[in-house]
């Protein structure tokens, strides 16, 4: 007999893993859809997820029609959750998840084993690191991911550096460029390897342009210098193959390099549970009920695919939570997947990857490169099913496209492309 059996199991109806905006909305929706036995597990000591360190405003423009700070946005959901008397376990981490939905959970004072009827995965994502993008050079101190630097500044009152260069134009990097400038640091520049920014246009304006911080596109860091603390970086322009062009290499003195080079959905638990992963999103493959390939395991928020706006995280997660409650309450009935959805020309990914066809749905998608005045077109074996015309399509901005249930009748395989 192994330890797993010896620790007595508790039984719960719906367990939500992660207490960021996705987990909060999922737990609330599960309760509101009739599930009385919801447990939300969060490894941090407070709820709110990544929002806790986002003290800038700009959250909730769609949902609340006002610009809230991250903690303010989270607080609206936390109050609602408390009002619904949903049980939460903070300072509690899910260590493992099996395909039959048994969770091993560790907290100060106890190792617990929980069997759940339905599990909602809402673990968010982590940042890509220097190691992941293979920047050559020495290993001095002063190289941080932008989110870690944000955590130090906003939650620990720690200043990580004075002369800053930023690699990658992801939103966190842009926000940190402004934040560090406001706190007296000198931000030399933001370097981006792509020909366009990977952050939201509004952040380019408000965080860089307003502070005269230059953004160099088609440029990357080729070497990190410094034996103790960072002494500077070498940067170079890249060609169309994204390889550095040697004779454009130049030295930029700085004591700090922030990396804002992408987020990776945190799907270790998901993989462990045997859930199929989409190689493009690095998140689970889901249907229009946000159920993964493993019955009873649902996924939403940044762990499903990286979002740029928290509002859509909340919307998506509420649906996932409601379906999880339905699944748990219905004696674990799964809907049949009758329609496949795949990305076509110009589209990087689209989600969900399968539909039941028995309900309206919203597709989330991202385009491969920026376009002006184009349409996103959904076809079923060549026949147009839905279309959305847009003035600006940008890889940094997630696109949502609604499809009515009537439009889905008779469909079998949808393709989403830029037309």
């Amino acid at each position, binding site marked *: 007999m192994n330890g797993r059996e*010896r620790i007595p199991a508790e039984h719960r109806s719906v367990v939500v893993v992660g207490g960021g905006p996705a987990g909060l909305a999922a737990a609330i929706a599960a309760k509101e859809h009739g599930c009385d036995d919801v447990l939300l597990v969060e*490894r941090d000591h407070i709820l709110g997820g990544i929002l806790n360190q986002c003290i800038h405003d700009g959250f909730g423009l769609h949902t609340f029609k006002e610009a809230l700070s991250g903690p303010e946005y989270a607080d609206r959901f936390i109050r609602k959750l408390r009002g619904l008397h949903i049980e939460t376990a903070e300072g509690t981490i899910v260590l493992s998840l099996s395909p039959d939905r048994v969770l091993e959970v560790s907290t100060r004072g106890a*190792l617990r084993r929980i069997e759940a009827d339905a599990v909602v995965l809402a673990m968010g994502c982590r940042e890509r*690191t220097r190691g992941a993008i*293979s920047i050559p050079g020495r290993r001095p*101190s002063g190289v941080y991911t932008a989110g870690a630097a944000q955590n130090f500044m906003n939650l620990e009152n*720690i*200043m990580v550096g004075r002369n800053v260069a930023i690699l990658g134009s992801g939103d966190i990097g842009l926000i940190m460029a402004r934040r560090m400038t406001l706190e007296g640091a000198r931000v030399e520049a933001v370097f981006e390897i792509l020909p366009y920014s990977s952050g939201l246009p509004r952040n380019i304006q408000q965080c860089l342009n307003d502070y005269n911080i230059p953004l160099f596109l088609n440029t990357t860091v080729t070497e990190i210098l410094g034996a103790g603390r960072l002494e500077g970086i070498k940067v170079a322009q890249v060609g169309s193959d994204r390889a550095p062009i040697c004779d454009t290499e130049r030295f930029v003195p700085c004591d700090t390099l922030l990396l804002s080079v992408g987020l990776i959905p945190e799907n270790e638990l998901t993989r462990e549970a045997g859930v199929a992963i989409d190689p493009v999103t690095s998140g689970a493959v889901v249907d229009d009920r946000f159920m993964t390939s493993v019955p009873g395991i649902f996924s939403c928020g940044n762990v499903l695919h990286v979002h740029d706006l928290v509002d859509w995280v909340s919307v998506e997660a509420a649906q996932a939570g409601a379906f999880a409650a339905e699944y748990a309450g219905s004696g674990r009935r799964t809907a049949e997947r009758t329609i496949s959805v795949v990305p076509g020309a110009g589209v990087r990914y689209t989600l969900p990857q399968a539909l039941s066809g028995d309900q309206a749905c919203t597709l989330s998608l991202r385009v491969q490169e920026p376009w002006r005045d184009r349409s996103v077109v959904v076809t079923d074996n060549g026949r147009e099913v839905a279309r959305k015309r847009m003035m600006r399509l940008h890889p940094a901005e997630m696109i949502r496209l609604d499809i009515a249930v009537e439009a889905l009748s008779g469909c079998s395989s949808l393709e989403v492309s830029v037309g």
Partner: protein
Amino acid sequence: MVRMYDVLVVGGGVVGCSVARELSRFSLRTAVLEKELDVGLGTSCRNSGVLHAGFNYAPGSTRALLDVQGNRMMDDLCRDLKVKIKRIGKLTVAFDDEEVAELHRLKEQGEVNGVPGLELVGHDRMQTIQHGVEGVLALYSPSSSIISPYGLTIGLAENALANGAHFHLGQRVTSIASQERGGWAVTTASGDRFSAAVLVNAAGLFAADVCRMAGITEHEIYPCRGEYYVLDRRLDGIVKTLVYPVPKKNSPGLGIHLTPTVDGNLLVGPSAEYLDDPEDCACSRDVMKDLRREAHHLMPEIHVTDYIRSFSGIRAKQTPPSVGGNKDFVVEDRKDVKGFINLLGIESPGLTSAPAIAAMVRAMVEHHLPLAPNPTFNPVRPGSALLFSDRPAEERADLIAQNPDYGEIICRCEKITKQEIIDAVRNPLGARTMVSIKYRARASMGRCQGGFCIPRIVRILRNEFGWSTADFLKRSTSSPLFVGTVRPGGEGTER
């Protein structure tokens, strides 16, 4: 004030720490002088972590002798010191007639050297040992193993300390003078003075410099860098056995290969590039590219996201690039310079050989000083070689119930608990850098490379150990983590 010892060891790498631990069996006053703020931060934390079997070295050479002996000593040593070791064996694979002939030669050579269990295996048997290996013939060496190299160095140092040896960290030896009444007077960069009857030079890449301080001028060290990639634990279990190509004549290393680590990662490397600066542990673009290409060739299932970091280590070669190859270890009790024990050119397999080198040094010290057994010597280091998360669930549940700090996970990638962080911070050597915590607790060595745990570790150190922002160093006094606080006065956490 001059601090007086019987034996001073210059350098706290695996060799110096092995010597200190061996000498702590005796009633001697022994001290290690290490320029870095912790032991093992030189080459000893930057290598493949392989215990070599010993068939690659010429019979009768010091290397052959010490490697085979050292390898044999490791099971007991690792058990006592709570160091991770895995006896996974190795296949050296031949692809053509020339290489097959070389394998036969290596087997004979190994047998003369006393390597146990060597066996030539054909294609089928090769496949049962390691699925997917191709080749005509392979030499299987069961005593080839993997070990935690920094784990071993730290274990040796802590056990030496527990048995009475002294460790002076952050002390760079700058001058050595023989004293009129015999013995050595040693000065460090901070102006501190030490004396001892016997001096052991275990300064690795700087061993030739230490020799020169003592007037010995015939040695030269040529730094030769080896770069690596570390791969995600996702791939753990695929490589069950070490697989190496047949070594090329005059090549400075054993060629690029995949090496599993005791913690479940895979290493790709090492390369071999001569350089001028013995501390230029950089990684270079071209080599990184080669390594990725080679890795993909060796294991097509490696995905771009599996590369979690890179690092490099530097070999202390005695041969310049124009000569190439290797020279035998220098392990000598200088006849011309009394009381100077010289350990120089300890490149691969120095990790494997370290305990045997130490035994040899002990015999040399005996010529200078009487060795009375240390009556309180205890070879066993307390604790466990296992991470908390590797222990059975039931045991973990009990420990968490007793000590809540075991229930709180600080490093999510490697599942390291708060108690393990606290233990690392309170390490007996008093090493206080972030890398010291990393090498002891394994926190920040996983796929997110500290993005998650470092802010949490910083919080623990500030709130529970009273550190201020200036106390946080990555690895040396010149690598501060922070430049101050955002708002004045807020040295505590705001949360």
